[in-house]
């Protein structure tokens, strides 16, 4: 589904991503973790071209990411993304947030788009908030709207960039629950998160990054119980004890 080979990226002279190789198969759920500044966000943002890589190949569902705008458009319409700070459109109601892209990008009729949006809002358990504006919702509700908004484009792949780290503890669970349900439907998911509980229950595999490199990739069980690398051990001991 996603195939990244020998990919490098620089911000100016700063080498953020170094020789990244990553295969993601259909229906696979991958959790990416690592210390702050290690390049996790940059990596998943390369997959939908929010950041541009300079070397190596990224192929998403058979389409190669190049400068070609047609390819970028195609990939973006198949890849949904959920951000740390939700990035909902504050001037539109919850329902309009969900229907905007289907109507204007997918050229769907308004009524169909609204019907689908309501289905997804029900799936994230906030159909009753459809007429409200994002500014009137709690953080957890906003993030669930953001998930529904991405799903309304019926993507084949969902990218999550620390979807719960801007939330108060009591709201984290409601978002994780939605993500777990989504995983159960067989969605291909790439999740940057520090929620190790989520990684243990949902992930097919965990990727650990540090200083722009993928240090270790393993199934959750061995990853948490018997990490191979010193840096992984150090990282795990830090986040599990704090």
């Amino acid at each position, binding site marked *: 589904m996603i195939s990244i080979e020998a990919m490098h990226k620089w911000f100016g002279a700063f080498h953020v991503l170094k020789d990244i190789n990553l295969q993601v198969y259909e229906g696979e759920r991958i959790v990416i973790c690592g210390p702050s500044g290690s390049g996790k966000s940059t990596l998943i943002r390369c997959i939908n071209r929010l950041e541009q890589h300079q070397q190596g190949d990224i192929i998403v569902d058979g389409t190669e990411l190049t400068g070609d705008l047609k390819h970028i458009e195609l990939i*973006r319409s198949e890849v949904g993304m959920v951000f740390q700070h939700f990035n909902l459109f504050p001037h539109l109601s919850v329902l309009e947030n969900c229907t905007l892209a289907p109507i*204007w990008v997918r050229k769907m009729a308004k009524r169909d788009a609204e019907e689908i949006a309501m289905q997804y809002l029900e799936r994230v358990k906030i159909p009753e908030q459809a007429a409200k504006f*994002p500014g009137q919702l709690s953080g957890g509700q906003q993030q669930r709207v953001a998930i529904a908004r991405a799903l309304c484009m019926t993507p084949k792949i969902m990218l999550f960039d620390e979807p719960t780290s801007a939330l108060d503890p009591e709201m984290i669970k409601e978002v994780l629950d939605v993500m777990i349900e989504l995983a159960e439907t067989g969605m291909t998911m790439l999740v940057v998160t520090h929620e190790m509980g989520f990684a243990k229950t949902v992930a097919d595999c965990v990727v650990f990054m540090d200083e722009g490199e993928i240090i270790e990739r393993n199934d959750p069980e061995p990853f948490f119980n018997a990490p191979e690398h010193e840096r992984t051990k150090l990282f795990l001991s830090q986040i599990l004890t704090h």
Partner: protein
Amino acid sequence: MTEAGTNSGAYAPGQHPDLPPPKGSAGAAGWMRGNLFSSPFNTAVTILAAILLYELITSIAGWFVLDAVIDAGSKADCRQAGSGACWAVIKIRINQFTFGFYPADERWRPILAFVLMFAALAPLLFDKTPFRRQMIWFAVAYPFIAGWLIYGGFGLVIVDTQSYGGFMLTLIIGITGIAASLPIGILLALGRQSRLFSIRIICVSLIEFLRGVPLITLLFVASTMLNYFMPPGTSFNLLVRVLIMVTIFASAYIAEVVRGGLQAIPRGQYEAADAMGFTYWKTTRLITLPQALKISIPGIVNTFIALYKDTTLVVIIGLLDPLGIGRAVLADAKWNGLSTETYLFVALFFFFSCFAMSRYSLYLEKRLHTGH
């Protein structure tokens, strides 16, 4: 004493009902006590202000209304009939103040254009207008309809622009400037942020040049210099030249106001739009521009009001705006010396137009507020 962590015991914990507020802290009486009579000093100031206001209002009302003269044949008649304002000068010249020297038989045309303007504005200004969709097409066609009605041609007698004047001229320049400068200003603001270097450079130079030059000089350029650039023998209507200058001048200011709004849009909005596959123009139109315009409303209306009042500058290049008419009226020996009445009348006209714009902008801000 109540202990920390418990209530005073009147109700069981968790059972406290909602009680009405203490007497005198809510309602009109409460407001007055809080705002007008909260201390002896405040009370004294309130009473003093009330006395002053009373004096002011009674004397103004006396001059404006009670002692004012409406019907008279000359200034001397006026002064005999009453000690207040001599509105007779306005009454006799009201048609000139309104239309300039627009022929009397054709005045129904600008009047009709003015009335139709409200029909064109309604769907743009108020989103609950009935038949809004169809009405918007009318709004799009309106500038052409109004131009035809006022200037003529196609079956109507042509009325040369030299005879336009008064409030009609103010409205023509002001409304054309406002309506045209908003889209042009938005394009300039977007161009200034463009990734294409050449577009950016053109927009920046244009904006900076226009903002660095007084409108008056642009109007002089319009009235004199433009002729040098035209092929000999062609005459390019002065009013059209003025309209162009006023519009591009205001556009530069609108561009900067809108740019301020665009810069306040968080990067995350662009990223979310990109991630869902919106193109640049769709992102702009559906996501960033609506938010930017909403933030910019006070600045935009500010620019509009400034533009509207600046239309009086055209008197300098010989157009007969209300001030020009006022001067012509005062030059009449019969009415010599009534400048207070004349200029106050013009001032009131501008005040009410600008006040309406400013109230509308407040209404718009309130309506677009979505709780964040």
